[in-house]
């Protein structure tokens, strides 16, 4: 019974670890410093998971979106946009809370009991808008518009910002490949600096990358208000005591906005609500009163 209780208390962590392990299960890649080349890499995993991670068995949706936009013959990616729409319409930002490997990394770092924890940074409302700018500029506009002489673009988000690519791809591959080690330069140093900044900030502030920079979280956030996976407040039970907001890592007033765009569906509010007023559900629900 104790074991079952422990599993129930940590079910999200178990799902996160399991999914990360399964989607990055090509162990040979880590051992030999190479990457998986199988056909499963046509399929995008739902979270931010660099396809140059030695263990990656699928493709990163943001990297793939840029790859198709970079290609000369396409200006719009039906395939990737369709995948993102399907995942978003089903899950919204549930992916961020339960299935994203880099989200898991941030969650684990936040558990470290160093530094006084912050709930938000100054200018939080405006900082959270940055990720939409990152999506628009680095994922969409730059890859389409900044092209070389033969018309091929660059994945600017992956190149300049993505910490997942550095942590899960760059560092393991550079460590294992002497040839790659010889070629690292300013760009690698910049990316490591971005990564370290986010990792250190993750100890003090819950999920800084997801809040401020992640373009995939930005995309899924549009679906939160209408996704099939949603949360509901039982207004007959809710006393607006704000215990949900006080315990929310992202400081969301759940009692007012159960399907806020920022919510990553971690479920903590459901656990802490003293009146059992918050429920999560998927698929069809009765009309809200």
């Amino acid at each position, binding site marked *: 019974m104790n074991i079952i209780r422990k599993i129930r208390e940590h079910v999200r962590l178990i799902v996160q670890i399991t999914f990360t392990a399964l989607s990055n299960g090509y162990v040979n890649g880590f051992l030999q410093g190479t990457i998986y080349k199988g056909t499963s890499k046509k399929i995008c995993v739902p979270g931010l998971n660099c396809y140059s991670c030695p263990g990656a068995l699928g493709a990163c949706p943001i*990297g*793939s979106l840029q790859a198709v936009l970079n290609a000369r013959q*396409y200006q719009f990616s*039906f*395939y990737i946009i369709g995948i993102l729409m399907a995942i978003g*319409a089903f899950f919204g930002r549930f992916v961020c809370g339960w299935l994203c490997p880099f989200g898991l990394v941030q969650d684990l770092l936040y558990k470290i009991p160093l530094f006084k924890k912050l709930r938000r940074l100054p200018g939080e409302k405006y900082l959270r808008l940055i990720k939409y700018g990152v999506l628009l500029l680095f994922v969409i506009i730059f890859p389409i518009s900044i092209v070389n002489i033969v018309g091929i673009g660059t994945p600017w988000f992956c190149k300049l910002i993505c910490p997942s690519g550095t942590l899960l791809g760059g560092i393991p591959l550079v460590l294992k490949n002497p040839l790659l080690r010889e070629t*690292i330069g300013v760009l690698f140093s910049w990316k490591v600096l971005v990564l370290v900044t986010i990792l250190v900030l993750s100890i003090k502030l819950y999920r800084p990358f997801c809040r401020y920079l992640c373009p995939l979280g930005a995309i899924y956030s549009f679906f939160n208000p209408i996704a099939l996976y949603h949360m509901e407040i039982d207004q007959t039970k809710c006393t607006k005591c704000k215990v949900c907001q006080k315990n929310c890592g992202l400081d969301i007033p759940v009692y007012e906005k159960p399907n806020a765009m920022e919510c990553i569906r971690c479920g903590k509010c459901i656990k802490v609500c003293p009146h059992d007023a918050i429920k999560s559900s998927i698929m069809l629900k*009765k*009309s809200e009163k």
Partner: protein
Amino acid sequence: MWFMKNKTAYLILMIAVIFIVIGINRGEAEVVLTKAVQICLECIGIG
């Protein structure tokens, strides 16, 4: 209210499936595969 919102989600899902089929027919999945099976030097901070 949620039924109306569910309709939106189902509509988006339908459009998503159509988009995926169009994308596969256009060869976009092959583009993804071609990119994903090579080490992305930009992604890892080299290129």
